[in-house]
């Protein structure tokens, strides 16, 4: 076998794996993307562009991962490769990531400032290094606070799941921006609710896919636990509300609570027949119809709480409780199972 035949064979399969990996970064089924498309149709291109730009910024880091990570470490050690072949793979494999080519293109494009090039290179390097260190089981969310009651560990687990979605990071980016504007005194009061609504929209797909990150094994455990369906749902909802309220701290808390309650009330239906989701990706809702059925009422509910009366929150809570009871019964009867043909 020629000296480069083995690395070439590995690179060929690595290219296929990298291409598949890239395709997992789809944003098409996410509520924020649907909102951007709707805004574009309403001829509000700048607003649509901002939403897509937020998603783009958030996706850059995981997209910059090291392609060589697609090969399991043990497999790499088992393969009969010479040191020179391993070095060749190390040097060539980064070029399988299109982000590398983007950074090079930016560097060669004279109209782009050095600062932008360095920023892009920094993001790429960070993505490379963090992906190389990932897989050791370290979780950035190990220290989640405890919650009262028997569902404590379930809520913590659910919160860790939700915090490892890109939806959360979109929400966090908007929320942090709003916080900085508020501190600088640049946030007008009439911008408070629109920003709250966008933050809640950013995480709303999570309410449509509450069981998406549990995996088959997680769903088996739910079937084994001696608890009612509504208790399983309430552990999910508590985690979602905790995330929503933390993100809404610099914004309108009551508006966020109203919107989040309605997002959950609508989302329970899609959640009990979930599609499997992936960590560090945007969550994908079941359909455009489900997204619209959630986005419109949750935004209206949040607006009603902020602009009419806080008592609307009671109505939101009542609707959420009805949904909890109804779909909790559904879990008791049929359990939670992934959709066929996912």
């Amino acid at each position, binding site marked *: 076998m020629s000296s480069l035949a083995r690395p070439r064979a590995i690179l060929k399969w690595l290219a296929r794996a990298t291409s598949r990996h890239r395709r997992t970064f789809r944003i098409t089924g996410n509520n924020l993307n649907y909102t951007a498309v709707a805004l574009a149709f309403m001829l509000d291109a700048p607003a649509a562009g901002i939403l897509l730009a937020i998603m783009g910024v958030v996706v850059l880091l995981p997209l910059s991962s090291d392609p060589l990570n697609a090969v399991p470490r043990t497999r790499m050690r088992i393969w009969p490769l010479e040191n020179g072949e391993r070095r060749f793979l190390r040097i060539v494999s980064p070029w399988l990531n299109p982000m590398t080519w983007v950074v090079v293109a930016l560097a060669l494009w004279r109209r782009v400032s050095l600062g932008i090039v360095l920023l892009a290179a920094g993001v790429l390097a960070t993505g490379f290094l963090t992906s190389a260190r990932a897989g050791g089981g370290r979780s950035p969310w190990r220290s989640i606070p405890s919650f009262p009651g*028997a569902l404590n560990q379930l809520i913590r687990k659910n919160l860790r799941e939700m915090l490892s979605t890109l939806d959360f990071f979109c929400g966090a980016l908007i929320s942090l921006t709003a916080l900085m504007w508020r501190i600088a005194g640049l946030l007008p009061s009439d911008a408070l609710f629109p920003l709250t609504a966008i933050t809640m929209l950013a995480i709303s797909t999570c309410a449509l896919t509450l069981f998406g990150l549990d*995996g088959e094994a997680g769903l*088996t455990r739910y079937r084994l636990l001696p*608890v009612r369906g509504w208790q399983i749902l309430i552990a999910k909802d508590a985690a979602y509300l905790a995330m929503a309220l933390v993100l809404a701290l610099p914004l309108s808390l009551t508006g966020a609570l109203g919107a989040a309650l309605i997002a959950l009330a609508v989302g329970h239906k899609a959640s009990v027949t979930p599609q499997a989701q992936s960590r560090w990706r945007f969550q994908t809702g079941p359909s455009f119809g489900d997204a619209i059925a959630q986005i419109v009422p949750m935004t209206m509910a949040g607006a009603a709480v902020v602009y009419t009366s806080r008592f609307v929150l009671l109505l939101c809570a009542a609707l959420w409780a009805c949904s909890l009871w109804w779909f909790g019964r559904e879990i008791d009867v049929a359990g939670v199972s992934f959709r066929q043909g996912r």
Partner: protein
Amino acid sequence: MISCRDLTRRFGQFTAVDSISFEVAKGAICAVLGPNGAGTSTTVAMLTGLLAPTSGEATVCGVNVLADPVALKRRIGVLPEDLALFDDLTVEEHLELTGDIYGLGADTTRERMERLLAVLGLAPGRRTFARSCSHGMRKKTAFAMALLPNPEALFLDEPFEAVDPVTSSVMADILRKAAARGVTVFLTSHILPTARRIADQFIIIRGGRIVLNSASSELSRPLEDLYFDLAEAPVSDELEWLGEAR
């Protein structure tokens, strides 16, 4: 303690479990043996409420499996085929979750958890997330979760697979002592020597049907011989390329 009659499960045209009936007495260890795909895991899934039977009925600890699944789950411990662990919880958080859900109280949970972690060799990795655990650690965690709430019956799907010999021996010892105190154990296994060592009753399933149901004291021949005759005989083949000059 465990009783089923004409229990059947079909998946479309395929019959995974075909009208099986048997009883397991309180405090007995029943080992269900069979080749892959024979229907052993499907039987465990039906008896624990994980899977509804197509027909037939089953009673566990006096509870009809279909009629009151929550009451059933409060009284049994299960080690399912896929272990049913959450990626985002650590080993000890899984045990705390079990204690909370079964209403054990913090002190009882803590005390039992420490003993289980120690006896199963899980203590050094107690703060490891399930997704980062070895398969053996994951299995031991799921086994500990089954034992923690003091169940009346244990349903264990392949408990000895992928665990080291010492842990396997410890698990077998725990099961024997639990059975002596009246806990009924229903397990599936491909590891015949361990099953032979601990079980009081053997059920061999082939193609979804029971081909042997016998007390261990009444076996007519060694278990391995019976298994190869009744369940599946080993196939011998010469893989002639092995050892050839390359």
